[in-house]
């Protein structure tokens, strides 16, 4: 469904993505993980068409992303960022329906879809008339997901969507999100820096370091059969921080 073919990207001489190739099968979840600055967000933004690669190609549903095609290709994409990326001057509802309104959906179709999504994301209907600043962090995230799902795109791109949430809410959102992904059968690319979150969502994990793929596979493969010293360090560090968090 999504394919990256030898893509590279440099910013003022520094390669932030270096010859990366990978593909995501339909209805599977791929998680991009790695330390800060490894290029995982840049890769996701390439898939969203926000950045075009210097070399190589990004393909969504077998169409290459270019400055001409990207707005067409984006019809297949839903994009969710940290804190939802909601427009603060619009109500939750207006945020959610913005694309449908532009596509001139009839009001009852919009209404039905919003109700359906609110149910799916377990978002309280009375919250729909509120502005983002009147919602909790978790609620804002649910609205962001509803907005991304409104026109039913095949591919969902999520850039650290849960990073700003407190642990309890985050846990709850992780459960709900995985439920949504499997119910809808979407192709998902999910960026996180948390190995546990990656393990929870991923059909396949891609671990990046300095713009290159260090290893890909399941969480168990990364832990049991690290491809390099870096991979085992990264896995160990995640465990330690986890213990640290548990002790704290």
């Amino acid at each position, binding site marked *: 469904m999504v394919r990256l073919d030898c893509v590279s990207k440099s910013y003022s001489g520094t390669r932030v993505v270096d010859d990366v190739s990978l593909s995501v099968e339909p209805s599977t979840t791929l998680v991009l993980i790695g330390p800060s600055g490894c290029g995982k967000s840049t890769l996701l933004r390439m898939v969203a068409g*926000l950045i075009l690669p210097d070399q190589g190609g990004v393909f969504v549903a077998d169409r290459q992303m270019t400055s001409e095609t990207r707005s067409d290709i984006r019809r297949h994409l839903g994009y969710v960022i940290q804190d939802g990326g909601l427009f603060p001057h619009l109500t939750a509802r207006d945020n959610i329906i913005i694309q449908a309104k532009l596509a001139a959906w009839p009001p009852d179709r919009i209404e039905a879809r919003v109700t359906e999504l609110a149910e799916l994301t377990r978002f309280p209907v009375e919250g729909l008339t509120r502005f983002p*600043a009147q919602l909790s962090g978790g*609620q804002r995230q649910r609205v962001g997901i509803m907005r991304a799902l409104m026109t039913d795109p095949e591919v969902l791109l999520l850039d650290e969507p849960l990073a700003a949430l407190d642990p309890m809410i985050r846990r709850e959102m992780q459960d709900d999100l995985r439920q949504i992904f499997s119910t809808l059968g979407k192709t998902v690319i999910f960026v996180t820096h948390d190995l546990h979150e990656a393990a929870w969502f991923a059909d396949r994990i891609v671990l990046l370091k300095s713009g290159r793929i260090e290893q890909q596979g399941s969480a168990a493969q990364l832990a049991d059969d690290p491809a390099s010293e870096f991979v085992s360090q990264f896995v160990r560090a995640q465990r330690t921080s986890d213990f640290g968090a548990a002790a704290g």
Partner: protein
Amino acid sequence: MSRILIILGLLIAAFAPRPTGRSSVRVASKMFTESVILGEMFRLLSEDSGHSTQHLRELGGTRIVFESLRNGEVDLYAEYTGTLINELFSDRDIRSTQDLQAALAEQGIRMSEPLGFNNTYALGMLGDDARQNNVRRISDLNRVDGLRFGLSNEFMERDDGWPGLKAAYGLSPESVTGLDHDIAYRQLTLGLIDVMDVYTTEARINALELTVLEDDREYFPRYDAVILYRQETAEEFSDAIAAVLQLEGRLSAAAMTACNRRVEIDGDSEQQVAADFLRAEFNTDTMVSEPGRMQRIAACTLDHLELVRRSLLPAILLAVPLGVLASRRVWFGHLVLGITGLFQTIPSFALLVMLLPLAAMLGLQSVGAGSATAIMALFLYSLLPIVRNTHTGLVSIDPALIESAEVLNLPNWYRLTEIELPLASRSILSGIKTAAVMNIGFATLGALVGAGGYGQPILSGIRLADTGLILEGAVPAAVMAMVAQAGFEVAERFAVPRGLGITRLEVQQ
């Protein structure tokens, strides 16, 4: 849709003409009392001849008024031969009235016969003092011993002042002190000096009963008051000009001085004084209806609002799009902010004077009510705050929101009007508010080019040292600025989207 209506409304409001015709005679005056009184006389005489006549009071200094006459914004005004020869045509060798008339004719301007008084430098003494010493002429001063002269600093310096005077009459007073003109008057009345320099038609000559000494060796250049009027006007409004020209030779120095005195010392209005003179001199039945203070303020308010409306609204219509473009391209942003910033650094008076010929060149009405000069200056001043705040408001939008809009495939126009401008609305409105408040303040300077408004009473107040009159302009100007400020704060509640005003997190239960 509502936004388009607002923009349409602004457009209509900005460019709707104010119903005024230019089918009237336009008199101008310079920024001193005598000139204003003469302007009022011209106006009343012209009106009596049946033509609607406007008087652009205190239009400006010699240059501005003469230029306005030259380019046809003004039909007539009172000038002095000395000023014409020594200032306006100082680069030409003018030796006679014929020379002067020829020089003026080249510009399409005609000059009347002298009105009858010569407002030049002279020496003055207290009347009693002069009588006791039997001094009537300057040459008589040589017969009196121990005289103390107190002369204004400028007079001490000028070529046509003290040095030449002293030589021409062979004067050798006991002491000569250079001092401020107002202080000289005080010292004279206190008996600390005996002789001072005066202008021959100054009001205080009359009020303090000074004797003006005759310039029996004709040392001082003549500053005969004359009427300058346009050749075209003489043809188009011949009876109006004929009516005004009745003043030729009818205004003695004593009469003019008495008029000046009534305005400057007694506090009568120029209009009243002019009307009284005409009634006495020509038996006209000129009646004046003095507008009350409230009427005057109302008239100034209309003129002032007119200046603000016609400069601020176009500024908004141009500056917001400029700010949007500036936020799109960095180089264009630098360019636009640089240029609009430059306008702000030009002193307002200089900007007005620079724009005068431009307005005239464009065939716009450069002076008088609704002066394009003043409007252009205010327009240029209003641009920067709006451009800057629009630019800042747009570039400081969270880039994540811009990217969200992009991935959502929102069309460019929709993104700008429905997402970016609303998000920047607080900043844009505050720019407009700043521009409006500044504009209202600056608009008082419009009076310098005869545009009227609250600057008019301020200028007159300064000229007449009348604090009440100054406040009559300053207080309403301040009130208007505060009302505008408050108005924009109310507008903010409606124009800034509600969601942006929420800072408190209201988590639902």
